[in-house]
């Protein structure tokens, strides 16, 4: 477990994740207080990554539960392996097991299909990191169920009994906020909103994740992205898009942004046709001009916008 906020900042940086002090404090408290961490933010700002990096920093397992509508306890918790159970009964018959004995063992653990939540609770050794990804996609029933599991970290399987976690996992929930979650669930967690990064932070991220890139280009990329995020797009680009774009430009061997380059690689950053159409002609020229004129290094507050 971590011993200080600084340690988290360092560990995360080693794993290539630039965390600000605020996030580091929240993560530190979550691990120390043993409370789930609830991360919210626009898509592509690195919510899921926090859980991955956390698991790596602690050198422990990452157990991931991807939420979707219709996800139920059979898929999140456990399910009996019916086919194996039936086969076992037949095999026992074939082996000539005594009639009273047949089927006595089929509700044992070997016939249990363990799903992520059970895995996380049963896990021996180090506390695993349980990532419950995109919780906003699940439905109300699952949310209610999760509330129960997260409050006492125990699961009851009628045939086996109650399984209680020896040491509760470190839980990270992420949400893109496509729907509002119930307050009760959020109240049990430490809440943190991950915003789009500042220019300085984003530059830092790009240089960490794409070390081969030249500083001029990365500054231009980050400045351009900063301008884009101020505009009214259907889907604003996140950090994931910035990194994709940086990688794309790098592999194309480009040193500096120009109109042609941006137009050909636009699909890396804007994923909707209407957004791409919006950024063409005059608005693109203007953004490019601002980007090129931007000489200030990281930390200089930016001026100007596309429109």
């Amino acid at each position: 477990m971590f011993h200080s906020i600084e340690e988290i900042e360092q560990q995360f940086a080693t794993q290539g994740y630039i965390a600000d002090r605020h996030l580091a404090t929240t993560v530190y408290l979550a691990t120390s207080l043993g409370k789930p961490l609830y991360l919210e933010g626009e898509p592509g700002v690195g919510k899921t990554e926090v859980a991955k990096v956390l698991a790596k920093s602690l050198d422990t397992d990452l157990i991931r539960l991807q939420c979707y509508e219709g996800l139920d306890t059979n898929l999140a918790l456990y399910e009996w392996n019916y086919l194996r159970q039936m086969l076992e009964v037949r095999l026992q018959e074939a082996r000539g097991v005594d009639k009273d004995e047949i089927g006595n063992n089929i509700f044992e653990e070997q016939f249990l299909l363990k799903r992520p939540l059970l895995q996380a609770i049963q896990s021996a050794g180090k506390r695993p990191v349980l990532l419950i990804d995109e919780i906003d996609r699940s439905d109300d029933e699952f949310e209610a169920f999760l509330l129960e599991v997260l409050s006492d970290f125990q699961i009851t399987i009628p045939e086996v009994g109650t399984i209680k976690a020896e040491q509760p996992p470190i839980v990270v929930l992420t949400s893109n906020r496509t729907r509002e979650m119930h307050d009760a669930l959020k109240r049990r967690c430490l809440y943190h909103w991950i915003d789009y990064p500042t220019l300085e932070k984003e530059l830092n991220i790009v240089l960490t994740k794409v070390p081969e890139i030249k500083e001029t280009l990365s500054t231009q990329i980050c400045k351009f992205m900063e301008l884009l995020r101020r505009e009214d797009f259907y889907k604003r680009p996140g950090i994931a898009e910035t990194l994709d774009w940086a990688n794309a430009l790098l592999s194309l061997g480009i040193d500096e942004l120009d109109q042609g380059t941006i137009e050909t690689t636009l699909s890396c950053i804007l994923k909707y046709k209407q957004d791409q159409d919006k950024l063409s002609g005059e608005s693109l020229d203007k953004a490019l001009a601002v980007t090129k004129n931007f000489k200030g290094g990281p930390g200089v507050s930016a001026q100007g916008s596309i429109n």
Partner: protein
Amino acid sequence: MHSNDAVSQRGDDGASVPLITHIVQFGRKLHDAGIDVNPSNLIDLSRSLLYIDIANYDDFYAAALATLIINREDMELFSLLFREYWQNREIPFEDEFPASEEKNGNGAGEARQLQKQLQPADGEAPGDAEEHDGDPEQTGYSSRELLVKKDIDGMTDKELDEARKIIAELIAILANRKSRRFSPAKSGQQLDFRKIFRRSMPYGEYCLKLSYKTHRLKKNKLILFCDVSGSMERYSRFLIQLICAMGAKISNIEVAVFSTRMTSITPYLNRKDIDEVIKQMSDQVHDWAGGTNIGGCLRELNEQQAHQMLSSHTVAVILSDGWDQGDADLMRSEMEQLRRRVNKIIWLNPLLGNANYQPLCKGMQTALPFLDHFLPVHNLESLSEATRLLRTLWH
């Protein structure tokens, strides 16, 4: 500076009692400003002080934010209150809130005010609705009487009652959908393997009875988007009145009225004086002479409701005659966007009741390709017809 202040709250002997008092006081202050904080959150904050250095203002702020706040919208107000409380202890509490509420015009303060206003109406809502529907002539509000007469001219109590039934049924049809989850059923197309297996356990390997499962019913979200320009106003008002009369029965509904601008009236649905509210809104916001701008209003709808109401389980109902004076391209792109986000779009058009009507006007032409259903609503029969059609098609 501020951090020194914070430390001094500990007292000389380092006892944490005064500090906890401050935390509780701070929690109360948040509560008064409309941010709900419960005791367990305050306990968490107190516990977190074991791990962080309270003299570090930023860390303490981060801890307080993480433990006390659960909505991004509250953050701005929170940071304001946090600064006020922990930086400068001289300000008397009572004086602070008007300023902070003003700054967050659409935030907590207003919501709280609204809630206050709604509270008395809430308690009386059911009986009240009954009264209006049963006998509109006897209500005490002259404005209401006038509107009812104007909107539903010549309608008797019986007809009004019938209208309410039809709307209730229509909403029930729109608001329910099949879930992907299953629940046990007496018969059905899918076998419930788990249950069969368990049931046959006592009988050894023999399966005596088959168990089935079927899809559950779930609730849709419903968006009602009503045109209140020109002649459409009376239809919209009629529909909204009927929906309000059902009051608490409907959840997950968003009602917005539009002409040149869009205004959400969902917060007012439970109010007794809904007519007054619609009227005020029309007077304030809607530019009656300016014609209808469906595209622009759809755009507002798409932007404002994107997170809360627009999802694959949303049914959008648009009530309009389609006379659009806005930009057709904008309307097309916004209809397209709405189409992608919601499950069904239904357009109710009173003009469709006229046998000679052809949807030739620009707005209607633009919208038609994106609609699931295009239905008339000029009188009760047509509404009932529309309900029947939807029932056969959807259930």
